[in-house]
């Protein structure tokens, strides 16, 4: 039951909203119980047996947390409890996600005969494991000093963020869950939440799903050894680069919108990442909650940048390798992480080395900015090839096609091919044979939208603050003159976004890409 499906929008969500509206008349406790129950039902809808894993993990973690909280701050007992908790969560994640991968590679490397188990991955395990680990560490650091079972259940299971994040810190929601009368449905919450949800749904249904039709054939052809040209390689890579952004940021927006309907604010995850002019900047904009987790709970404990530049670069590589592996049990993900680690090291070296250089001139500065943007974007797009490709061979095939001199000269001489891999897709979409030249135009328009359109956070930041009474510094600062407001124009825009999305998903919607992680 994905957020963008009719089941969710027309059946599950109205039931949850109506139930909340009834429960909130009875008090905070019924509301929380109702939301927890429906969140568990939402999780069980995917694969009921795994609900037991989720419940077992929550209860075990809660037990460990209580032991840690009871122990004196800074004591060995607290450290031991937290360590056991972290190891337990890592082992659970490791078993379900990496056991088969490790066994396969062990057998390949050492000629072993370990059984390579095909274990079905519990949905969302990567996300809720990290959330629980973060809370364990926060308890150890004394950032969290008390915790009720109910609030812990809400923290882990609240359905908007249960499956694919954002990776929420307990400190972000603690006060919201404790505040009397906070969690409820009101017309204002509903309008604000629907507006944010509508933006996310639009990104997913009208953006990501459409771009997927241009990316999938190219990556599939590369995996199957079928031929394709330079134009198609670039189309596929750019389409996937944008598909991933619209898919994941769309999901994240929908999660924030859903939570806002109930008066809860979750952190946004994307701040126009394809505007980044450096890799450092990119990681402040892309999957913000994951990079925050990696920074706070991995990079800094490893020493961060406090132990000299050499150690800093090593820490960056370790963090990005783990980040890559977190996304999936495959060497292509490790390669993606390694690439980004390398990018970060190079970026830091450049930044440190150029700090003493004179400021660029009036015209040179913008040109350098543009060049930085292009280089960053290309570096990110190239790394995504490994992220998406089914094998190293397929990834290298795509990259080779992208930079094939003969392919470029053909493209320049003959223009975009009207036949080939995407011709069938174009025919399916338009009914007109021999006309696939609109596809790169669509991809470029999507790129323009990703770069130029205001981020959802910028659109709704002030209203979330106003309506849900938060401190303004909860969100990273952005600059945008376009703001959502409760006016008829924006209400019409919201209605249109829902309508456009409905037309796109009437024949079914694909699962979110990050559900695979």
């Amino acid at each position, binding site marked *: 039951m994905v957020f963008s499906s009719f089941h969710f929008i027309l059946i599950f969500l109205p039931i949850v909203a109506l139930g909340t509206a009834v429960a909130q008349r009875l008090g905070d406790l019924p509301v929380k119980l109702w939301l927890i129950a429906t969140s568990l039902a939402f999780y069980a809808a995917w694969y009921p047996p795994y609900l037991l894993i989720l419940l077992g993990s929550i209860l075990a973690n809660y037990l460990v947390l209580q032991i840690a909280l009871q122990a004196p701050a800074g004591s060995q007992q607290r450290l031991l409890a937290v360590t056991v908790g972290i190891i337990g969560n890592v082992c659970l994640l490791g078993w379900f996600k990496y056991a088969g991968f490790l066994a396969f590679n062990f057998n390949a490397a050492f000629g072993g005969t370990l059984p390579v188990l095909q274990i079905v991955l519990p949905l969302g395990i990567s996300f809720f494991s990290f959330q629980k680990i973060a809370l364990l560490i926060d308890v150890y650091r004394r950032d969290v000093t008390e915790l009720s079972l109910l609030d812990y259940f809400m923290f882990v299971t609240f359905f908007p963020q249960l499956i694919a994040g954002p990776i929420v810190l307990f400190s972000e929601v603690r006060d919201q869950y404790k505040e009397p009368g906070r969690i409820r449905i009101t017309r204002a919450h509903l309008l604000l939440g629907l507006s944010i949800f509508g933006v996310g749904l639009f990104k997913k249904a009208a953006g990501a799903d459409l771009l997927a039709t241009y990316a999938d054939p190219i990556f599939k052809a590369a995996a199957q050894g079928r031929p394709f040209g330079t134009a198609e390689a670039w189309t596929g890579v750019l389409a996937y680069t944008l598909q991933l952004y619209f898919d994941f940021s769309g999901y994240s927006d929908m999660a924030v919108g859903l939570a806002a309907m109930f008066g809860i604010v979750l952190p946004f995850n994307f701040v126009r990442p394809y505007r980044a002019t450096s890799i450092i900047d990119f990681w402040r904009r892309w999957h913000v909650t994951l990079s925050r987790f990696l920074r706070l709970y991995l990079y800094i404990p490893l020493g961060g940048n406090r132990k000299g530049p050499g150690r800093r670069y090593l820490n960056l590589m370790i963090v990005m390798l783990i980040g890559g592996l977190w996304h999936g049990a495959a060497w292509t993900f490790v390669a993606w992480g390694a690439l980004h680690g390398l990018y970060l090291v190079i970026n830091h070296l450049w930044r440190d080395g150029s700090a003493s250089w004179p400021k660029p001139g009036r015209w040179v500065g913008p040109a350098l900015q543009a060049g930085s943007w292009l280089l960053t974007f290309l570096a990110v797009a190239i790394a995504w090839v490994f992220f998406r490709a089914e094998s190293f061979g397929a990834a290298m095939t795509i990259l080779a096609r992208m930079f094939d001199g003969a392919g470029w000269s053909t493209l320049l001489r003959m223009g975009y091919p009207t036949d080939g891999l995407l011709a069938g897709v174009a025919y399916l979409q338009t009914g007109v044979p021999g006309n696939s030249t609109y596809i790169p135009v669509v991809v470029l328009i999507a790129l323009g939208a990703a770069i130029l359109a205001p981020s959802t956070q910028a659109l709704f930041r002030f209203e979330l603050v106003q309506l849900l009474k938060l401190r303004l510094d909860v969100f990273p600062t952005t600059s945008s003159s376009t703001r959502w407001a409760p006016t008829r124009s924006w209400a019409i825009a919201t*209605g249109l976004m829902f*309508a456009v999305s409905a037309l796109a998903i009437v024949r079914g919607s694909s699962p979110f890409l990050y559900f695979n992680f």
Partner: protein
Amino acid sequence: MTDDAQPAEWFSGLQGTRAVSWNGLLRTVACSFILFLLLVSGINLMVDPKGLYQLVRIDGFNVYKPFQPSFTREIKALGAYRYRPDTLIFGASTVTFGVDPECPTAGLPGVSRVYNYGGQGASVSEFVATLPDLRAIGSIRRVILEARFETQPFASASSVSVAGTGRPADDGLMALLRRWIPASHAATYAENLFSWRELALSIQTVLANRKADKSFLFRSFGENGIYDQGWLRRWAAFVITEQNLLGHISNYTDFLINRAANATHVDVEYVYEAAAAAQGDGMALDIFITPVHATELILFREGGLWPLYEQFKIDLLRAIEHARERYSVNIRLFDFGTLSSATNQPIRLIDNQDIREHFSDPVHFKTGIGDMLLAVMLKCANGAAVPEGFGRELDQTVVAGHLSAERAKLDAYAAAHPELVQKIAETIERGRKRSQ
């Protein structure tokens, strides 16, 4: 501030603007959503690019439906429901192009309204998957099912056969709708009304209808499912030339000969499924083996598939007789894969677009042959002159003699056309080497 406060009280940027309540804003969201959907669905309904609704028909606007041939399955599912035939002919492109289902006076009782349910690439497995929808029509008493040899599920002794394409599984809400309202095909209507692709087709349909010269546009399927015969005459009134024959042989070496190279038999289990379904609704079932040009039979022979072809007929007949006994269903088998004056038109050097000739390529027959099919199977008095040896109803008493006679006729044809046979054999050999 309480929740009763209006939006303008919350947001300083709204001061001075006309106040709108939260309820008003929520209503605006709902209204704009509904109105936009109504706009798109209204356009799709009026233009009707697939001819599903048939409510509006305006010259220069939507009379021509150039995209219909790409959506045969959807269109015919609803077309059959609207037409409410008593007899339905199911098959692939051969049936789609080649059968005019008009049967003015049928000799068989209960046959008066015949519907052409052919679809490009359709297989018998797809027919079986489509049966629930067909049964929901309620009026069908006889189904004529094409058993085209080239698209049968070939099997070897050690393998499981690969079935033909079935209808893709419905998911979620649409599956639910189809189960509840199968006869009205509500889900198909909904998918076509509220869809970007249909809007794109609608716009292009209108633009096509605005052209001054519409002579090469596809007009529409007939109400009885017949293909636009005017379009066929303009675009596909071909005859078999040596060039297109050898091109076909080359393609079919890949598509058929190499695919069936290791096959020992054809999986005819679908006969039992079709018979079981027919039993439930008291339907009669006629299965016919497709009429093909003599050169296609030569392809089977030179490609080493003739024994498989004969075995296919034998196995099919056996399965039909078992199914007839098991399910008490009236099933007949007709073999039109025979050599006669209707199927041995000469191979031309150039295409003179003679619509009187019966085949446009070795597998696709024209409506002259289609008329003969209906004359033989349904006793339609459609004026078709059925030549000697064109098709035969098979049973166990005649099958051995029939196959022997066909073998002899083919040998005689081959002896009379040695150069043609030689060229076909060479083309097959080149195709085999290419695939190795």
